[in-house]
């Protein structure tokens, strides 16, 4: 717990898992969960560098901005997903090519 590398490794694992979800999942909500994992891994990196590196509290502020952006992104993405469901009766990202038809 006293080394930067531990945190970077955990963050790399979370990033890889999130990327795997984004690539392979077909359900749009599951893709959204993968994006949340990726954003969390970036946040761990920001805070770890602010603890060990030279960026003092700027890392905390940036992590805060990332959390704000994640909230906005989740709201808009779920609105799009519900719109998609109303039009197609499924939220499979392979079939979704238009928002309106």
């Amino acid at each position, binding site marked *: 717990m006293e080394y930067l590398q531990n945190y970077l490794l955990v963050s790399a694992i979370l990033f890889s898992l999130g990327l795997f*979800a984004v690539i392979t*999942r*077909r359900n749009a*909500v599951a893709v959204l969960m993968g994006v949340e994992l990726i954003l969390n891994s970036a946040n*761990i990196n920001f805070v770890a560098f602010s603890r060990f590196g030279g960026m003092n509290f700027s890392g905390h502020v940036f992590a805060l901005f990332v959390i704000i952006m994640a909230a906005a992104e989740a709201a808009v993405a779920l609105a799009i997903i519900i719109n998609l469901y109303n039009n197609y009766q499924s939220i499979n990202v392979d079939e979704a090519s238009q928002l309106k038809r």
Partner: protein
Amino acid sequence: MSEFLFWFITALTIGSALMVVLHSNLVYSAIALIVTLFGVAGFYVFLWADFLAGVQVVIYIGGILVLILFGIMLTNKISSVNISHSNLNKGVGAIVVLGIFVIMVRMIFNTPWLQLSKPEPSQTVGEIGRLLMTHYLLPFEVASILLLAALIGSAMLSRKEN
């Protein structure tokens, strides 16, 4: 003790993240995501970011995860009990992700990182507030406009036609 706690939180976070990615039932995935987000909040505490840990619990677990659960419930018919789906192209995806992961691990262990031994800050909230009101004032205001735009946009997208 804290060493043990750190590795416990690490195992919990990675295990539940695996469940998020691989479980076929979406509701279980969302519940596992709660555990992952709590684990990340634990990492923030280890990294002396107590305020961020609180924000993580309030916004991610109290807000975003409830939104995701709503999304799962609204996009599945109540009568169909089985809320599941399988992954697509698992093999190709695993190879690509594993390659990226190996590159990242090599980068992490080969780079000579700057590691300063700093004293633990007595408070973080005051310093974050000072930075938000001085150095990062413009991004702060832009973030509020972004939230307003997301609010209006999502309300407009999800309302019924006519």
